[in-house]
């Protein structure tokens, strides 16, 4: 038995997130509530994923647990929004001495809302380049950043990666239609390359600083072209390639002020919005014409 997933998050209204987390065995583990007694969680929705040890009864608590916080739990998009910094920080809580048999590693991720995307490939037909085959990814995160204490492939077991969907390729979900291409992986790889080039996907090996195997921090730079929605931040503690504890919390990214007002108007009252756009255009056109004439007359 690899682990117990405590669905505390579900009880706190995190049903949507919990779906993302594979749940091999779901057991109630009341002892987990005690785990947060001494150090109250700073993040609003703790979702501890703990290793139950060799047998669930003899080891009710994971030997090492993560307690974490975020520099802010919301990002406001204003007109002058130019990206934002998010700091994930925390500590490893343990009752026993630091195990010296293996190295402790920390991975932190920030994931934006998922959207579907069509990837097309061009081929030369009759001398010109034409879109031929396509692959549709049902849900690809609009933003995804992974920060680690050491190169990801060295510290994370592929099985664990598949289970917790940590590395960038695993963050993509479900092909939306039956595949008629031989090599769908090439398509998703191309998409990851493009998104990494524009900065919406990032893998920062070594960007998490871990002090004395206890305190850690990870800085994330959120780009200016953020999509509105609920982002998801996660922290994983690892030993010998296995996830021994994890933590997850939401990060709200919302448009505010004028941005919010225009966005709502465009979607709630498109006719009014469209007419307003035209009116602005016409007035601006007339205004410039009038101003220029006045200028010429002088």
């Amino acid at each position, binding site marked *: 038995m690899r682990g117990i997933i405590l669905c505390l998050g579900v009880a706190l209204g995190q049903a949507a997130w919990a779906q993302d987390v594979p749940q091999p065995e779901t057991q109630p583990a009341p002892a987990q509530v005690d785990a947060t007694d001494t150090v109250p969680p700073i993040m609003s929705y703790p979702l501890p994923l703990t290793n139950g040890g060799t047998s669930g009864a003899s080891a009710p608590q994971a030997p090492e647990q993560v307690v974490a916080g975020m520099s802010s739990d919301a990002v406001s998009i204003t007109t002058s929004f130019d990206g934002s910094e998010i700091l994930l920080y925390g500590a490893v809580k343990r009752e026993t001495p630091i195990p010296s048999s293996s190295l402790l590693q920390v991975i932190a991720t920030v994931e934006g809302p998922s959207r579907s995307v069509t990837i097309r490939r061009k081929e030369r037909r009759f001398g010109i380049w034409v879109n031929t085959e396509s692959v*549709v990814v049902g849900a690809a995160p609009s933003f995804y950043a992974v920060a680690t204490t050491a190169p990801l492939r060295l510290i994370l077991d592929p099985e664990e990666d598949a289970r917790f969907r940590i590395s960038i390729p695993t963050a993509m979900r479900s092909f939306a239609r039956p595949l008629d291409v031989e090599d769908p992986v090439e398509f998703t790889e191309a998409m990851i390359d493009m998104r990494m080039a524009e900065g919406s996907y990032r893998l920062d090996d070594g960007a998490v600083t871990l002090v004395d195997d206890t305190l850690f921090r990870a800085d994330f730079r959120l780009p200016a072209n953020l999509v509105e929605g609920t982002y998801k931040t996660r922290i994983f503690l690892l030993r010998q390639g296995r996830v021994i504890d994890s933590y997850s919390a939401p990060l709200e990214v919302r448009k505010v002020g004028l941005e919010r007002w*225009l966005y709502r108007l465009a979607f709630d009252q498109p006719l009014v919005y469209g007419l307003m756009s035209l009116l*602005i255009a016409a007035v601006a056109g007339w205004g410039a014409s009038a101003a220029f004439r006045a200028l010429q007359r002088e």
Partner: protein
Amino acid sequence: MQIYLPIAEVAVNAFTLIGLGGIVGLMSGMFGVGGGFLITPLLFFIGIPPAIAVATGANQVVASSVSGVLGHVKRRSVDFRMGTVLLVGGLIGSALGVLVFNLLQRLGQVELVVQISYVVMLGVVGSMMLVESLRALRRTRRGARAKRRAHGWIHTLPFKVKFRTSGLYLSVIPPLIVGMLVGVLSAMMGVGGGFIMVPAMIYLLGMPTKVVIGTSLFQITFVTAFTTLMHAISYNTVDVMLAVLLIVGGVTGAQIGAYLGARLRAEQLRILLALVVLAVCVKLAMDLFLTPDDLYSLTPGIV
């Protein structure tokens, strides 16, 4: 100065957008083209999603055409009767264009068809215009007056109407068809269609160049206003913040363009426009034939 665009959901530099609007506005005022064929690819280039670029580009064209057309009204170089006939054709055509667009989208080759038709159309129009205006320029240098266009088959068609401003007595059928073709193009390519309409009016209908520009702007104003409204209502793709920035640059550019246009000789104006049209054509043709930097492309949503 970075500005976050509420609908496009990207942040871009405000001065880049004002500058882009200014260049396109300059062309608009000078040549009577809406500039959609320039602004849309330029917006793609700075990372605006295509659907939003097309819709917002149309909104910007409204502003620069209003600005330009008012300048021309003052100079009495707008043929309102001709403009109205073209407009009726344009609205019918853009409705047809939407149907064709949807059909191509289902076949999955809309991008290719649009690109090829751009290349063919721009290539033919641009080279014809360049050759003709160079010849005209040489003729006037030699002191001979440019000949009036001979009466051809166009003048044998029925429903003749007097277009006083243009000095023409012509059937309404040719302008109606020109308007319709432009309408189809504008709905399919997200452009005003001035770059097709201006040469058609000069060479096909035989209108004087000075009147052509004002009249073309008049028609473009209404066709693009209609397009903008349709995009805003059915797809929510007009980004007013983006439009305002483009407009600020655009209206200023359009005024300067109209002023410069009035000082240049008609032949010179046509040569310049021909060169711009050919440059865009070459760029698009290269995209078709050269190996692209990236064989893969991303489109949001399930297509």
